[in-house]
């Protein structure tokens, strides 16, 4: 495959994912509103927001790193997405998965977070490092059950190659990791709640105490880029979960359906639960999901996954 074709495919893939991810964001707002008994904004509100922020004439900057923060963030989202094969067997949505395996994706997730943290830090606002400190701490804890789940998956399929993992789950839903290794999936899904920073793990953004957390100083185009990334990055994570635990997708429709369901899971949990304090959420992740993750490894390595 020529490199240009590959780049073109990547462009298509990214565009689809971004649009999809932003739509999901809109839908979430709508759902929250309805749960709260409001009418809510239209589902395309995120697009309007992005356009609005980009059209600001003056961008306020706090320094070079501040400027690079959103760039890092979006690059992180893009990179994460681009190293995941989105649709099994599809050349268009295969992305650059030949560059690395699951470990690469997992660590690329940090790329954007670290960059954003740096940019926000340069903003000089005390709320941003406060939010980042919470976010990083929370990340380090929800990564534990997630990584245990990943290890369990790697043991189960004998591979860290996402395409291989998806391939192994083909041929009926009973082959999905969800059913062959449910403990790992439970652990991973709980950590997804933390990853998506929905309630009860939304303290990082903490809309009440520290208005919007890390991005507080971000404005105009900077904010616009962050908003774009929010859609893309959400999509990337969902696709990753779909691939690892829900059999992947062989076409776009299946992908949309599955990722939507995964997303709705965290949305519903988020809508139903009040927020944890930081230390509560850290402790939570290190307790039950971690135990479940360890159990999943024990089961998969000693009993071959049969419960």
């Amino acid at each position, binding site marked *: 495959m020529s490199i240009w074709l590959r780049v073109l495919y990547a462009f298509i893939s990214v565009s689809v994912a971004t649009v999809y991810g932003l739509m999901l964001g809109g839908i979430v707002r709508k759902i929250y509103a309805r749960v709260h008994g409001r009418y809510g904004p239209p589902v395309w509100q995120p697009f309007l927001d992005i356009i609005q922020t980009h059209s600001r004439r003056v961008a306020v900057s706090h320094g070079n790193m501040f400027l690079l923060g959103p760039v890092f963030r979006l*690059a992180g989202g893009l990179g994460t997405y681009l190293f995941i094969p989105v649709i099994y067997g599809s050349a268009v949505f295969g992305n650059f998965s030949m560059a690395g395996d699951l470990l690469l994706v997992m660590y690329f997730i940090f790329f954007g977070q670290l960059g954003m943290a740096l940019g926000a830090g340069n903003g*000089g*606002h005390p709320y941003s490092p406060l939010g980042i400190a919470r976010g990083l701490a929370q990340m380090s804890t929800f990564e534990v059950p997630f990584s*245990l789940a990943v290890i369990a998956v790697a043991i189960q399929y004998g591979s860290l190659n996402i395409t291989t993992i998806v391939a192994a789950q083909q041929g009926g839903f009973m082959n999905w990791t969800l059913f062959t290794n449910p403990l790992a999936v439970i652990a991973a899904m709980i950590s997804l709640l933390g990853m998506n920073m929905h309630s009860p793990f939304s303290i990082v953004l903490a809309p009440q105490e520290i208005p919007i957390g890390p991005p507080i100083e971000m404005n105009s185009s900077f904010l616009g880029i962050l908003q774009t990334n929010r859609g893309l990055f959400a999509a990337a994570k969902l696709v990753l979960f779909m691939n690892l635990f829900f059999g992947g997708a062989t076409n776009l429709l299946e992908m949309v359906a599955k990722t939507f369901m995964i997303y709705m899971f965290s949305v519903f949990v988020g809508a139903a639960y009040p927020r944890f304090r930081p230390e509560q959420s850290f402790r939570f992740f*290190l307790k039950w999901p971690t135990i479940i993750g360890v159990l999943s*490894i024990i089961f998969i390595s000693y009993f071959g996954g049969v419960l």
Partner: protein
Amino acid sequence: MVSPIYILIMSLAVGFLLSIIDRAGRKISLTAFYGVLTFNVVLMANWLYRFVFLHVPTLVINTAGFKAPISINLELGLMEAFVLFFANLSGLLAAVYLFKKFKETQVSSLILYLLLIMGANGLVMTQDLFNMFVFLEILSISTFALTVLKKSRETLSAGFKYMIAGGVASTFFLLGVVFVYYFTGSLNLGNLSAGSFTNVGLVSVFLLSIAVFIELKPFPANGWALDVYQSVDSGIVSIIAVVNSAAIGFVFYKIMPLLPSEFLTVFGIAGIVTFLFSNMMGLKQDNAKRLLGYSSIGQMGLLLAALIFTANVQPSVRYLVIGGLFLNHLISKAGLFWLAGIVKQDKIKDWGILRSRKPLLVLFGLFIFALSGLPPFAGFWAKWEFVKVLVDAKMFFVLTSVLVGSLFELIFLFRWFTSVVKNTDETNEQLASPGKSKATPVIVFGLMAVISSFGIMRFFYEFNWIQVLPIFAVLAISLIDSLPSKVKGFLSLAAVAGYGYYIYPLLENNLQMFFGVIFIIGSAINIIATLNRKNQSRGFYGFLLMMIFSFGNLLIASTYLEFFLAWEFMTISSFLLILRGQKAQRASLLYLIFSTAGAYLIMVGFSFAPALSSSGGALINVIELVNLPLVSIIVLAIGFMIKSGSAGVHIWLPEAHAEAESDVSPFISAILLKAGVFGLLMLGISYISFTPSFDVFYWIGWVGVITALIGAFMASFQEDAKKLLAYSSMSQVGYVVAALAMITHLGWVSALYLAFNHMMFKSALFIAIAGVYYRTRTRKMYEMGGLIAKMPLSYITVLMSIIAVSGVPPLSGFGAKWLIYTAFITKGWYLQAGVLFFASGVSFLYLYRLIHTIFLGQLKYEHQDIKEAPVWFIIPQYIFMAGIMAISMFPNLIIKPLNVIAMKYFDSSIQIDGLTVISELGHWNGNLVMYVTMAVFAIPFILLLVLKGKTQKVKQFNIVYAAERPESPQTTHVAHNMYAHFRKALGKWTLPRVQLFWDSVAEWSHTLGGFFRRVYTGNGQTYILHIVVYIVVMYVVMGVK
């Protein structure tokens, strides 16, 4: 040749004459006095020469023209000549030391002194038991009388206690002599042997030996001796500690053949107990001379034990052990007592005054080092051989006591040393000039310490010059120490280059080569940062070179001893480098204690190891063929893990890294820790071929993993930038240890990759922080902030480095993570991998903290005008950055060679397909990742530049802050206790338990020492009671009928 009997005759004759010729003037009598002492030394030197080099047979002198049983006969052999030469030399030098006193006191002191020396000579040479008693009494009485050379209340009471104790002991000795005669009809040692005594007759040798033993001050029947050591004039006390002890010790050596082996074992154990307890009690001591007393008593106990337990080994080893211990004790103890007389400060904490006389300080250090048994001094070799003997004989109780006792001794000696070097809370008092007569003996013994150590290295071990090079480096640099520091810096750089050039052909194995790159090239780059030093930095480059050369010598060491020697040199030099830090007293002491404990373990481990095959070559190459026993592996592993800062034994690490000078820290963190890794790898190589039943490395793997996690946690909670980096090093090396513990191909590739990567980014980080510290003069991160605007170059280094640490693609750190997780999962160490993931997550916390609190956030007012770090700090940083970029872009640059290194020991588990590395589990194309990352970074960047329109740069406090203007950068900078919530969540898990554990160990040892020393009530009668009870107990223990 002049017969040694003239020593006795001359001393006696001149002694009697002195009272007469003194009337003609003190000058004449002093001339005669020193003449005799010099005569003794020269005579013995001559005899010693004849015995050593001409192999003259043992000389037997019959008095009164009759042979042995009728007359008294004397014997002078190699051992006698050796002991007497040094005893007489000490006698002469102590007399020189006392010159001023001797000029003023009554002539009787001179006479007594001569009698004392004569008594010692007679004791060593005589073969007749009763004669021995007489000489013993002459020695004792003259010593008693000399103790009151300084007539103070303390001296008198100590002397009185000494006398009654000595009286009791000599009563028993006399009884013993008579009983020996009663049972055997002979008093001549030549006619007696252990077989001469039937069951009933044993009581005679018991009395004889116990009396001598009491004179040698066994614990706890030795309170009297301590009082003497504490109170009596330094010149005389040096004689008591050295000459008397040597002579009486030799008596014990001579009567040893009469004793049944059960007696000897009990005595040996009593000696060891004395060694252990004296040193333990020394921990609580704050009076300098009493401390030396504890040490003396301990040393004599050790010497006795060595005498007894080496009885069956080959003579050359025995000579080395006994001679080494003896010489070491003699030189350093006399030297220290003399220094005590010069310093004239009772309390250890007041000895800081020594700093005003640099040469004396150096000598003080020399003696402390020698006394602690550190190389190259005689005690080191003795200990090394002794440990081997004990291990071979399976005397593990003795072995443990020797090592624990030595450690205690080292602790109190170096607490003293570091407080002398570092203690700052005192006046600028100047130490008065000691005068020639007092300084000369100290200098002579200082030189002797050095010469004797080179003698041992030359004659007993025949070392290659390269093994001794670290010492020569110190000596060489000390010669040119007055040059400006930059010149020395460049010279050192050249020396390291030359050294590298020299050892390059010796690195036959790729693994050696790899560590050569880390040790030598890494060091060389780090030296650049030291070029920023402005002052003369006296002593710095010498020890730096010593350390670097020792690193290299570790690689090419071909025997256990060479390896251990290099290891110890490395420890010493790094200790001295750390000690240079402003507040490094505690840190360096902690470092030395842990390192020495580790070194002892390594020594024991090597003693357990089977002999190497004679094929030669570096240890790391021949160790493959060595079947290390399990205990050896365990002990060695712990020793190496102490150096690599593994959890549980890591507490030295943060302190040492933080308190060392800021351009020393990179060496310690980035390079020194790798020495431990190198050691572990060496073990691993042996382990591959001879896996023992118990999987040691499985547990080492766990320790590594836990280390990684604890290090990351601790790093997150630090306020001190260098401590943060230190804990980060601990964590990172934990990864390395865990990886190499897998003993798989991929494990080793990842371990080496991590080690290399760590060397680069940690050097860069420490140098960057050194630059920040240089400008801001603070290490507390919350006192900084917003430095990105002032120090952008340093910022970029830190940014790149933390990306490399964290493992975020595309930089080299990700390669490490990819390799290690793949290795773990392939190995089947799943839970370990889970813990590592956690550690890796936590590492983001401290990394962000590091960069944010220093470089981001709000700039402090006092830092408005600071500049970028000096160029000497920037250059090495960017060399390392270039390295990191290179292996990030082209991971094959390093993966391929590492793959080859590991393939020497394992089948390869990875394929390299072009630029993609393929493992059993997955794949990684670092090159492509880099390009994709660049692209995905460039696109939003360009997008942003296009979209953002006009940018307005705002001033410092122009932020969205609820309509308030923040008042000061301090209140707006989130830095202090940044992860309070995290700490709260983890609760008691973040308690420094290890620290608490070691604190309580220290407290317990001190409490125990404090408890046991209560036996020394100061009451003379209690001391007699101790002696009597001791004798009774020994009588029962030995089962004498």
